């Protein structure tokens, strides 16, 4: 009896999910993948910086620290990454920018998943007219360059953080919808779904207990890989002045004026926000790649013995 009780508890608890994960081949693979560790370390660094930004940043983002020209001073002394053309500390602004980048990335991915996943599930499981309609929309959204559409949207409705996120989600949801639909379609055909129907499960239970849990892995991968792409896109829009506005220290926005500044030899205002973007994006990309390979059994180990 005790075995059953134990099994029951494990089956339902969260620790059960991790036990399952720890026993799965994907996890053993992931643990041995250096990319996973590099990615994990970088992501921890970035997230930690975002959380403790107020403690790390020595100055406020808008403090004008240099009284006389030239306001842009090279790295050294009190300002380890130098100051910008308005005499503000580059280091503090880069640190505070981490929060904005993550905020945009996470909000965007969450919004895209909230739109895309249910649509994909419905299209895949029920098929028919719903499917056709959703897939037509997905095709259009996927083939359109997100940046162009976002720029046009902002051109008509104005800039700002909210519009930036809405503008980018106009195309971004489609990736989630397509993957979810593909998952639902494949899983629906699996004998275990049909045998669930054969023992009398309801549609609702089949979707929640059979299809979604089995299709979650690629969604995690997609989310992990969408996040860095979203951060890059957002920074490009910020750079073009179409996203968040001064004096908010978004990394992309900090580079807007940098192009003319490098012509005067002021390279530090351009270099460091870019490095921050690269670290963040690289971290999530490493993690995403490792996850994808771990969760895609085709690439794992050897084909047969």
């Amino acid at each position: 009896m005790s075995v059953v009780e134990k099994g029951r508890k494990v089956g339902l608890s969260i620790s059960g999910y991790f036990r399952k994960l720890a026993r799965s081949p994907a996890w053993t693979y992931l643990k041995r993948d250096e990319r996973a560790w590099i990615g994990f370390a970088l992501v921890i660094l970035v997230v930690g910086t975002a959380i403790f930004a107020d403690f790390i940043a020595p100055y406020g983002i808008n403090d004008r620290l240099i009284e006389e020209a030239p306001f842009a001073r090279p790295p050294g002394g009190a300002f380890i990454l130098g100051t910008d053309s308005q005499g503000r500390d580059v280091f503090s602004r880069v640190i505070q920018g981490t929060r904005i980048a993550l905020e945009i990335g996470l909000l965007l991915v969450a919004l895209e998943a909230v739109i895309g996943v249910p649509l994909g599930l419905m299209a895949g499981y029920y098929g028919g007219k719903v499917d056709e309609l959703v897939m037509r929309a997905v095709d259009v959204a996927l083939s359109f360059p997100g940046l162009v559409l976002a720029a046009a949207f902002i051109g008509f409705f104005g800039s700002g953080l909210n519009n930036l996120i809405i503008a980018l989600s106009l195309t971004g949801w489609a990736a989630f919808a397509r993957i979810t639909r593909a998952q639902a379609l494949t899983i629906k055909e699996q004998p275990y779904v049909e045998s669930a129907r054969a023992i009398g499960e309801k549609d609702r239970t089949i979707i929640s207990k059979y299809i979604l849990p089995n299709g979650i892995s690629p969604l995690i991968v997609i989310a992990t890989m969408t996040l860095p792409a979203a951060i890059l896109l957002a920074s490009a829009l910020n750079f073009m002045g179409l996203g968040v506005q001064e004096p908010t220290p978004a990394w992309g926005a900090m580079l807007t004026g940098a192009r003319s500044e490098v012509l005067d030899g002021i390279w530090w205002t351009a270099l460091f926000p870019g490095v921050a973007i690269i670290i963040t994006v690289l971290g999530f990309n490493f993690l995403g790649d490792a996850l994808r390979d771990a969760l895609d059994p085709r690439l794992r180990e050897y084909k047969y013995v």
Partner: protein
Amino acid sequence: MGKAEGQVLVKAENLKRYFRVEAGLFSRGKARWVHAVDGVNLHIRKKEIFGLVGESGCGKTTVGKLFLGLERPTSGSVYFDGVDISKLSREELRKLRREMGIVYQHPQSSLNPRMLIEETLRRPIEIHKLAKNEQEKKRMILDVLDEVGIERYLLERYPHELSGGQQQRIAIARILLLNPKFIVLDEPTSALDVLVQAHVLNILSNLHEKFGFSYLFISHDLDVVEHISDRMAVMYVGKIVELARKKDLRRRAMHPYTRSLLAAVPIPDPRKKMKKREILRGEVPSAISPPRGCRFHPRCPHAMDICRKKEPKFKDVGGGHYVACYLFKSSR
């Protein structure tokens, strides 16, 4: 036919199931139809093991699904215990599910990979509210484990941590919990090695003995079907060509296709090598555009003019032996 042989449990009447296929990129809109099941009549009695043999794509799996209402027929009816299940609503059918079950070919994919074995076995009890309390649920699960010879510690495993034979026995256990009257076994041993196959076949036979289920045993393996069945039928391109008691089917095989099939099956006895037997030429035609007349005529060594024009009727030639071929006359 002899009523003494037991009452009819499941019956198919002129059962048809067509599937739509899109023709391809450059000929959109011209949908074609796969005639997967094209007019099948058969019945299965209570406590009977009925075997259905045929080559891949002949429609035998679809017959199994139609019998359980997992597929809806294009036309014709399936009666289960006198009720026409093709007329039931989704919800009525769902409730009827506890009377029947299905076991699939690939055991690993017929168990939810994200469910512990324990929960997999718990689901049927919960769906149909078969137990009064937690205590009873546990007892039911442990009882059914004993039936299929699975050890208790496997309950807290996931399907991928079990061997193929163990997975298949769990799939059987899940059905036993419902205590159904009728079970469709769709190639249940085809993916297993011969020793594991023997094990699973033994378990199925013993359970049948003990609980008196009716089985529809579907397989491409004539020897396996013959081993386990009471009566058996041979399918070819959506139609049943011959149906008989198992002893009669081998000894008194009539339809030329049945005979070729029997000749083609390798025999595990080196003194009976097939060298001298005739080998059937050609391949199974597409179910999208099956041949006119008798579907076997392009490959049949005895094909006559009439075979090319008109489809032969499925007729009783005596002793519950049915055949669809012009070479034989009805007993009536």
